[in-house]
């Protein structure tokens, strides 16, 4: 099993490396989930890893984390879909403090944001991802997309406003 260095945590490499691995875990664990559910679970596993990258014990390999997180997300998914089936009780000792519950509970809210983003222009969506995923500054984004920095700031402001309105319309408070 390959260990990784904390400083080498590269989520994109991890995604490319483990997507099919997780897919096999899911397929071996369950027969009840659709392809769409399976894709969602795989994405959520990586999201959990991302959100908990500070808590991972880098003395160990990633595989046990991935297996444990995957099976726990499947369990939560089953609960949500009201499926009564037993996933093996996985000894998730490694997963102390890794927050998985949050993923399912935030799902509805995240779907509102995702839907709103998908309705925006490609460029706006790209700016959103460059800012929040790639953590680029407005100056760097402006350079990448060959537009002015003021343009980037204005677009970000409009994106946040649209998302805020969508969340509030969906019944969620914002910034309170």
């Amino acid at each position: 099993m390959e260990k990784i260095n904390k400083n080498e945590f590269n989520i994109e490499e991890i995604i490319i490396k483990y997507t099919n691995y997780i897919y096999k875990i899911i397929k071996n664990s369950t027969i009840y989930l659709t392809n769409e559910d399976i894709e969602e679970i795989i994405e959520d596993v990586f999201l959990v890893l991302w959100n908990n990258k500070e808590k991972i014990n880098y003395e160990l390999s990633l595989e046990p984390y991935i297996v444990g997180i995957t099976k726990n997300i499947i369990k939560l998914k089953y609960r949500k879909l009201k499926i009564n089936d037993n996933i093996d009780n996985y000894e998730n000792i490694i997963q102390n403090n890794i927050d998985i519950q949050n993923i399912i509970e935030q799902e509805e809210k995240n779907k509102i944001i995702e839907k709103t983003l998908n309705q925006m222009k490609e460029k706006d969506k790209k700016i959103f991802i460059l800012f929040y995923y790639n953590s680029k500054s407005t100056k760097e984004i402006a350079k990448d997309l060959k537009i002015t920095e003021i343009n980037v700031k204005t677009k970000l402001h409009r994106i946040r406003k649209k998302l805020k309105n969508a969340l509030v319309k969906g019944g969620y408070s914002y910034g309170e």
Partner: protein
Amino acid sequence: MENKKFENKILEQTKLKIAISEFEKKEYKTKEKNIETKQFYTYKKILVASLIICIVVIGTVQAKKMLNYFEKNSVFFPISISDAINNGYIQDFNMDYIYSDGIGLKIDSLILSETDMNIVFDFKLNDNIDLVNDKFNFSYIIYNEDNQVYAYRDLAMKNKFTKKFAKEHNIKFNNVLPNLAKEGNSNIITFTPNNIIINERYVATNNFPKTKKLYIQVIGIGCIVDGKNKSLSNSNWTFELNIPDKFYSSTNIEYKLKENIDNIEVEKILVTDTGTILIANILNKDLEIKIVDENKNEYSNYGGISYIGNRVSMYFPINKNNITDKLYLQVSINNEKNMYELIKKY
């Protein structure tokens, strides 16, 4: 090639999810109180009360109806609510709407157990009520005869309602009304121009105490139009609900550790009809705790862990109906598992 295509699809979608997660961390602040609510708009309105009290006769138990609602609406369906339903801690109230200012209100049903509470509010709006959009709002307080507040919502009134309530009931108010709920959730079941049905669910911080009567005050019904508050009613509805005998007369089994554990001070281990509650002071937050029965079935904490200082309450999906004679607390840290026997307290 197909594999590569799938990997890239997952990559792009995950990047978007991570971006959304980071956006929420940076821009989307949740309330400090750790109550997760699907919240409505806030508005300010001075309360003018016209008190309506309704004494409700217990209706027939219709557990299946409530289960169907949860299944149909894909509400996140916690084990403890289903246990509460299956154990008969649900009451359907066959009451009529109580009308004021053109709005009728009734309580459709109540699910109540030691750990969970679920109430369905049913609003009927006359045709002359102008609900121009879906930004419907109302405030409420749920409390018992001893003035213990089970849960409340007072966004609409910006705490004016709860402040007044605290004063009237001699409760200490410090910007927050002390209450028994750890977290809450709100879902709209029906939304039409004339009928709005809303489900409010709460999980107890420790437990919801037994009570023969529960009171629900509802006030401040309104909506937001063009960014401004619009009151639909200034009335105050108060419902007095009789709590099912089954809930009131149920007995729990209290356990304690046979031997003390370092770094864990157990306050309470309570096995109820709907689950097991553990309240403890834990110094090492890296511990993982499970309950294990004599058949080696392991029960993990359900619903997340929230600490207040070192004090934590956990809920495990093992109840009076499925416990074995012997029970254990399994404590794990750094790959090391230890089992500690639990014995009945009385």
